[in-house]
C-alpha cells in the first residue's frame, strides 16, 4: 500500500528529498524508476509526470462563483460553524426573530439527514433552503461550495439582504472549505471546555467572530472564561467574542447587530 513521510520531525522515508520550503521545488525527475521487465520483446518503464494541481481549486472556483452571485444581488453571506449541540439553531431562531421585518434573511440549512432544524426555523419569514449533503465535493461532515451553489438556487436572492449558511456541526472539516461567504463566524458553548481553541485551531483561527453560547450554564460548570479567552487569543489574536445565551436571550443583541452589519 501507499507510503507517507513527514518532514516535521526531521526524518525522511522512502525517497531522497531536497529542501521542502516550497513544494514546487520537488526534483523527482532524476528518480525515474528502472526498467521493470523485458520478457516478451518489449520493455516497460515508469515516467514521472509533474502535475501540481491544487485539489481544492475546483471547490474554490465554485466559492468564487457563489460570492459573485451574492454580490450581484447585493446579498451578504455569513458562514456559521460550530460543533454539534452548541446551540446554532437556537441562536438562529433568536436572530431571525430579532431581524424579522428589518432584514430579509435566507438560511442555507446544512442538516445531514433530517428537516428538523429547518422546521425549527420556520415561521420567522425567512427563506430556507435545506441542503442535500449526500453528494457534491464531500459527504456529510461539512458543506462545500458546489453544495452551497445548489442551495442558493433554492433562494430568491433578489428578495434577500442576508444569507446565513448554517454549516454541519463539526469543528474540523467545515474550516477547510470556502463556500462563497463574506464572513465566517462560529458558535462555541461553555460545556465544550476551555481547551477547544487549542484542539481545533484551524477552525477557531478561520473565523472573525466567536459566539460563546450557554453562559447561563456558568453557575453549574467549572468553566474558566479567562483561560478560554487566553486559549482563543493564542490561535486567533484580536477575534471578536460575543458572550450570550441563546436560550435566555441574554447578550444576543450584540451578535444580531454584527450579523446584520454592513447591510
Amino acid at each position, binding site marked *: 500500500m501507499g507510503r507517507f513521510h513527514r518532514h*516535521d520531525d526531521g526524518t525522511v522515508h522512502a525517497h531522497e528529498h531536497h529542501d521542502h520550503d516550497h513544494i514546487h521545488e*520537488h526534483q523527482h525527475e532524476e528518480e525515474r524508476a528502472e526498467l521493470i521487465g523485458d520478457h516478451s520483446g518489449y520493455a516497460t518503464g*515508469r515516467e*514521472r509526470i509533474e*502535475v501540481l494541481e491544487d*485539489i481544492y481549486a475546483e471547490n474554490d472556483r465554485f466559492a468564487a462563483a457563489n460570492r459573485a452571485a451574492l454580490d450581484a444581488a447585493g446579498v451578504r453571506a455569513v458562514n456559521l460553524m460550530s460543533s454539534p449541540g452548541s446551540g446554532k439553531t437556537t441562536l438562529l431562531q433568536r436572530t431571525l426573530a430579532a431581524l424579522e421585518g428589518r432584514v430579509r434573511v435566507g438560511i442555507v440549512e446544512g442538516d445531514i439527514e433530517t428537516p428538523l432544524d429547518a422546521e425549527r426555523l420556520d415561521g420567522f419569514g425567512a427563506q430556507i433552503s435545506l441542503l442535500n449533503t449526500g453528494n457534491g465535493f464531500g459527504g456529510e461532515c461539512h458543506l462545500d461550495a458546489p453544495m452551497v451553489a445548489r442551495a442558493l438556487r433554492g433562494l430568491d436572492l433578489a428578495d434577500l439582504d442576508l444569507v446565513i449558511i448554517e454549516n454541519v456541526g463539526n469543528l474540523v472539516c467545515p474550516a477547510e472549505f470556502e463556500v462563497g461567504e463574506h464572513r465566517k463566524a462560529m458558535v462555541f458553548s461553555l460545556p465544550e471546555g476551555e481547551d477547544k481553541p487549542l484542539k481545533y485551531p484551524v477552525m477557531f483561527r478561520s473565523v472573525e467572530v466567536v459566539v460563546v453560547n450557554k453562559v447561563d450554564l456558568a453557575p453549574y460548570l467549572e468553566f474558566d472564561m479567562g483561560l478560554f479567552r487566553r486559549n482563543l487569543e493564542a490561535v486567533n489574536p484580536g477575534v471578536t467574542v460575543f458572550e450570550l445565551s441563546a436560550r435566555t436571550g441574554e447578550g444576543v443583541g450584540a451578535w444580531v447587530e454584527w450579523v446584520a452589519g454592513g447591510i
Partner: protein
Amino acid sequence: MHEVSLSLQLAAAVSRAARGRQVRVVYVAIGALRQVVPEALEHAWVFTVRGTPLGAAELDLDLLPAVLTCDECGADTKLGPELGFGCAACGSAATRVVSGEQFTLTAIDIDIEKGTCDGTFPPT
C-alpha cells in the same frame, strides 16, 4: 473526516492527468493545517480506486509542516503540537501562515513502453 471527499477529488485529478495511462504512484503534498489523517486518506484511497482504472495506483504522501512568518521580526516558526500561532522568536502575534495549507497533486508515475522488437504495439 473529509478524507473520503478529498480522495474522490484526488482520483478525478489523477484521471485527468493520466489520460488513460496506467498510474502506479500518486504524489500528494499535504500541509499540516489541512487536518488530513494520512492513514485515513490511504484507507479511503483503497476504496475510491478499487475496480477503477486507478486500482493499481499507490499514494505517496509528503506531509509538510505548518510554518508561520513573523511580520515584526521576520523569523519563521514551525508549528508544533502546542499549536499557538505566536512567533517563537519574539512572541509577536502578528504572524502569517506561509506553509501548511497545501493539498496538491504534485506528480504521478505512469507506465511507459520503451519500444518493441517487432514494431507491434501494444503487445498482446
